[in-house]
């Protein structure tokens, strides 16, 4: 049952010298109820961090009920069979800790941060909210109100408006087509029974991992977590299957809004996290638009032309293919020029090989900065949670470095041609039509 994964440690930790890898030392076990326990001892501070990762993200939202996963996660801390919402908040605040639950696109996470001396109190609260949430009707009303207000507030941000329209245009009614928090319409359709049903299906221990990082031994973690979660039972969740998705044809959407600066999103379907080209794409995208001031988009649109403060390209590599997006903001009058420059850079990286210098810089940044992704307990916990959820392996830090180092100029051009398709771009521009002097019509 118990599998040891001795992956070494960060230099400078009190770990024997046989450690050679880059990632944190992680011990992986399976609890009697089927949940995976992943422990990384870090004794430099008297604190403990816990992340319970569940296959209960927004992709599980039933059609037309976008926001259900998010509402369910939010409601866990709003009352249990024996504790009111206020009692939970008061108990965690009294020990100066943090307890939170949150749904993302693919997964949901319950997080706990406490001082070592308060671990028992914290664990008791964490287990209670995960095992016995009450989903009280009055708390549902509150949560829904708060979410509707936040959706409303988001409408002030042209980039947020553009991103939601882009997501909808790209994915339609399929699971990635709605915002994690839902929409004004979909939230109105969610019933308490929906929440209870969602919880029953996706919050069992079978598909869950408990990541523990901090000042406790593996033996203590095993004992504490086995006891705290003894009453947690349930079968593994059924596998998720993304329904067939036909990539939509290219189009441009202009949304008229009285803004001085436009929000722009352009892109198309991207990749899944399991794509074997992931690391090669990371190198290519660093050169194109994720490498900050080293990136070509930043150089062309910001440094050379002064058209934007922020411009970047990103692949959201989810369980199923997430979007590839270029996101930027520019004053209304510069919209066309900024978009033309972005398209030009995408064409260029497809048509011509990157230089040896660019390749080397990207590889040196991506490999050399890896220790920076593991320099705190919080970052270590996030790394382990992701490595587990996406099945990367606990030795992924080393695998990543090897793969990045192996990328060639030809590989970069190959993935640019395979994964960038300007002829399929969905382009969403939220702008003041009068200002841009452009008819709000598709092209």
């Amino acid at each position, binding site marked *: 049952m118990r599998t040891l994964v001795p992956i070494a440690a960060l230099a400078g930790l009190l770990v024997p010298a046989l450690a050679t890898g880059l990632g944190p030392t992680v011990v992986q076990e399976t609890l009697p109820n089927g949940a995976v326990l992943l422990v990384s001892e870090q004794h430099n501070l008297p604190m403990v961090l816990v992340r319970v990762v569940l296959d209960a993200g927004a992709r599980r939202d039933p059609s037309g009920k976008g926001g259900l996963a998010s509402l369910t996660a939010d409601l866990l801390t709003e009352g249990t069979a024996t504790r009111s919402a206020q009692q939970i*908040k008061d108990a965690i605040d009294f020990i100066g800790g943090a307890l939170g639950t949150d749904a993302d696109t693919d997964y949901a996470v319950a997080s706990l941060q406490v001082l070592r001396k308060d671990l028992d109190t914290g664990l008791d609260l964490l287990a209670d909210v995960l095992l016995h949430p009450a989903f009280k*009707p009055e708390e*549902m*009303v509150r949560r829904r109100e708060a979410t509707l*207000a936040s959706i409303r507030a988001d409408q002030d941000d042209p*980039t947020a408006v553009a991103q939601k329209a882009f997501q909808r245009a790209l994915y339609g009614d399929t699971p990635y087509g709605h915002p994690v928090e839902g929409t004004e319409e979909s939230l109105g359709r969610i019933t*308490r029974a929906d929440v209870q049903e969602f919880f029953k299906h996706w919050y069992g221990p079978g598909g869950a991992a408990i990541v523990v990082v901090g000042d406790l031994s593996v033996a203590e973690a095993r004992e504490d977590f086995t006891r705290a979660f003894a009453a947690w039972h349930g079968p593994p969740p059924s596998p998720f299957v993304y329904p067939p998705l036909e990539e939509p044809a290219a189009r441009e959407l202009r949304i008229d809004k009285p803004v001085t600066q436009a929000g722009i999103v352009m892109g198309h379907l991207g990749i899944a996290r399991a794509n074997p080209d992931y690391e090669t794409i990371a190198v290519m995208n660093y050169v194109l638009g994720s490498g900050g001031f080293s990136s070509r988009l930043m150089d062309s649109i910001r440094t050379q032309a002064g058209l934007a403060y922020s411009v970047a390209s990103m692949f959201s590599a989810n369980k199923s293919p997430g979007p590839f997006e270029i996101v930027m903001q520019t004053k209304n009058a510069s919209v066309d020029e900024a978009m033309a420059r972005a398209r030009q850079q995408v064409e260029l990286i497809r048509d011509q090989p990157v230089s040896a210098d660019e390749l080397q*810089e990207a590889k040196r940044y991506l490999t050399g900065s890896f220790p*920076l992704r593991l320099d705190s307990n919080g970052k270590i916990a996030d790394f382990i949670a992701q490595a587990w959820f996406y099945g990367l392996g606990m030795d992924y830090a080393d695998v990543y470095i090897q793969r990045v180092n192996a990328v060639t100029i030809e590989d970069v051009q190959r993935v640019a041609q395979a994964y960038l398709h300007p002829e399929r771009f969905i382009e969403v521009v939220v702008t003041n039509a009068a200002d841009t002097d452009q008819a709000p019509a598709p092209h």
Partner: protein
Amino acid sequence: MRRRRTRTGGQPIGRLVLGLLLGVTLAWAAPAGAGGYADRVVETVLPNGLKLIMLEDHKAPVVVFQLYYRVGSRNESLGHTGLSHILEHVMFKGTDKVGPEEYSKIIQRNGGRTNAWTTEDATTYYATLASDRVGVVIDLESDRMTNLKLTDEVFLPERSVIMEERRLRVDNNPVSDLFEQLSSTSYAAHPYQFPVIGWMSDVAQATLADALLHYRTYYIPNNAFIVAVGDFDHTKLGDQIAAAFGPIPSQAPPPQVRAIEPPQRGERRVEVRRQAQLPFVALAHHVPNLRANDAAALEVLAAILSGGDSARLHQELVYRSRLAREAGASYDYTNIDPGLFTVYAQPLPGKSAAAVEAALQHELQRVADAEPTPRELEKAKNGIEAQFVFAQDSLFYQAMELGEYEVAGDWRRIDDYLPAVRAVTAADVLRAARTYLRPENRTTAVLVPDPPVAAPTGADRVPKGMIN
């Protein structure tokens, strides 16, 4: 809970939105704190006046290097606002040795991350690198402390970039717009009234000569200090820094800010009418900073009002009366000059700004009427103590804490923080509330959506399904 700078208006602004990673992250922010540093920090001052503040922490093979210049919007004047932030941007335009925007590329080529930010009080440049690469940033920073090369060819596009940054942060963000007006109304005599990013017309007219004058006046070793935290040997690192920065001559100290804000004698109000989805209300009060005896009591008071969801503002405005979607308090603890204690809330759709303002006033009256309960006091202190430990999880945050305290006078004051908080009594909290959170010492800012928001649709109409 402990936000030293106002919620949105006065947040540090930088030359790049943070984040360079591909893929997804599970973000969980590390909170605040300070203390126990005097035994571990080594301080050295070079003959030219440059101070080094070094803290060894060997938990990861990483060094955080931060260079602070003691200049921010506090040092600016009418018609020339935003200059410190403009200079922060153009500092990346190169020297004889390093081409425009090469700085970031060199750091990234060495596996490091870099950025910069400007506040009211200081301008900070940082790089986080593997321990064996720290020499790279030392060379780059010592070079550009004296050898900045600027031409209009690089200056003018960067000025346009900053105008885009202002459109992004202020024009497209009604709450940020409101906080700008809150500051400019709260202060009459002190430059804390200016936005760090500057007024648009000032930025649009700023010249290369303005930036160079600012550079020559303030970017001198005796107006700067370095904070390094991480995996290094302080003797070796100190020698390395001294070799690179030591030859730079000290200069006449820059002009000191003389402004002192006079006491406020009566409530002020400001309204911002603009396109916005929801109103927003903020009430700011002049308060002393960390140098005053009352500072610890104000920290505890801020925690009692907004240290978590069980604190008063969230409980009363968000949870119990369901007036607001969020509510909180912030206290400018480490500002160089006295700052503001602000409470704020954003109404839920369908709720009025007036009702939310009245509820905020009611909570301010409550803390001035009666002492907090013993449990509230203990909870506030527990929260502050725990955050002090959690803060040490991050090398970067530790460096930032040391830097902020040093900007405000002396990094050693960090060690006074927890003992002072522990000593705060319920009577101290009551006295602080009565002394500072008075209406006569208050500026109220209200964001008014214009055109008015249509009658509430979703919020007050609960679908049947929700309560079945």
